[in-house]
């Protein structure tokens, strides 16, 4: 199977769209660095810096058992990653408080295991939710926030008031 058709395994550290874009930029940067290094070697110059990979890139390369081989494979990898960025399903999740890495990793792990293996998240912040999350997929909205639960329980207040006024 070629790299074009390979469904990549996205590690938990690669949770959001932004992470994916960063990954693509990093791969492009590495590709450029390797190409420059090759040219410099051919011209008798030594390359200055070694390749430094981020944890996310390292996790991605390890999860998919990839290596930075020749230029052609790197080009195909970049193209595949760009296609993945354009086609990966996005789940917009809005929290009431800032989400840490661990929480995002757990959430994206659940989404990839339960919903789609290549889904990525788009994180938002809205303190008015009080708690829970507001989730939006392509065609649906799932309001799992405390604010929605409060709105859904309005009838309890109305019933209590009616009971009080009836007792009075």
């Amino acid at each position: 199977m070629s790299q074009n058709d390979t469904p990549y395994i996205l590690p938990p550290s690669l949770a959001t769209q932004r992470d994916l874009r960063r990954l693509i930029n990093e791969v492009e940067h590495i590709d450029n660095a390797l190409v420059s290094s090759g040219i410099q070697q051919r011209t008798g110059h030594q390359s200055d810096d070694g390749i430094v990979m981020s944890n996310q890139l390292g996790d991605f390369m390890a999860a998919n058992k990839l290596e930075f081989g020749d230029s052609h494979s790197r080009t195909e990898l970049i193209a595949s990653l760009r296609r993945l960025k354009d086609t990966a399903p996005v789940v917009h999740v809005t929290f009431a408080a800032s989400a840490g890495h661990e929480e995002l990793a757990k959430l994206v792990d659940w989404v990839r295991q339960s919903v789609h293996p290549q889904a990525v998240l788009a994180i938002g912040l809205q303190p008015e939710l009080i708690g829970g999350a507001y989730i939006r997929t392509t065609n649906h909205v799932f309001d799992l926030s405390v604010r929605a639960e409060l709105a859904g329980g309005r009838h309890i207040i109305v019933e209590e008031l009616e009971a009080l006024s009836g007792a009075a």
Partner: protein
Amino acid sequence: MGLFKKKQSRKPREPKKPAAEEAAGVADEVFTEQYREELRAMGREHFKKILSDSSSDLKRDVDVILEQLTGTLRRHMASQLDLAITRVNNDISNQLKEQMIEYNRVSSEAQELVIQSLSRNAQVVHEKYQQMSSNLQQVVANQEVMMVGVFQDNQSRVAAVQSEQDKALEQLKSSIAEAKRQSDEAVQQLKHNAEEQSRMLNEIYQQTSGSASQMKQSQAEAIESLQKTVSSLQEQHGRLQQMIDESITKQKTMATELINEHMARIIEHYLIGALGERSDLTKDLPNILEKMQEHKQAMMDDMTL
């Protein structure tokens, strides 16, 4: 030998059976199946007859009881109806009595008022009559005094010119006659005036009495119109009261509904303001994942579309 012959001519005796067996045999001979069947038929007929007699007796008894019940029920219903009619009659008669008492009271009050007004009018008329009669008497007295004075003047003239001749006496006599005639005419005129005035007073009195009756009638009409006005005012007052009560109730209901409608939002805003910044995602994440699990299939379907 004859005895022995007789003895010999007898049939040989059969051995004696016991009495029970003999009786059973007789019974078997008598109570054959046919006889038993006939006995059964007779028994059935007898029981049928007894049953029919019993049923007819029972039916008769039930009819009698039903008739008694019907009669008792009718009597009870009639008594209840009589009681109700009596109660209604009593209520109606009481109401009529009250109405009649009220009517009598009002009519007596109206009559008193009319009588008072009539007595005042009569008093006024009487005063006027007295005044006019006193005026008339005064006028008549004045006239008499005047006439007496005139007569005395004439007499003094006669006495003063007594010494004169017959012409003067005749003139005096003629003047006396003339004066007498004038006085007679004046008296008649006065009488006529008095009669005229008494007639006028009578007319006035009659007019006054007529106007008093008219006044009485107009007062009755005024009382009736006042009563109608009072009843209409009372009706309007009742309607206004009802309208006020309804508007108060409606406003209360509206206020309650507004409070009920907005209380939930007010509390919600309060909670959002108080708890909005206290959210901890670490503790909340398992709950969120649990809720997402419920919508997992919908998310999967959405992603695969």
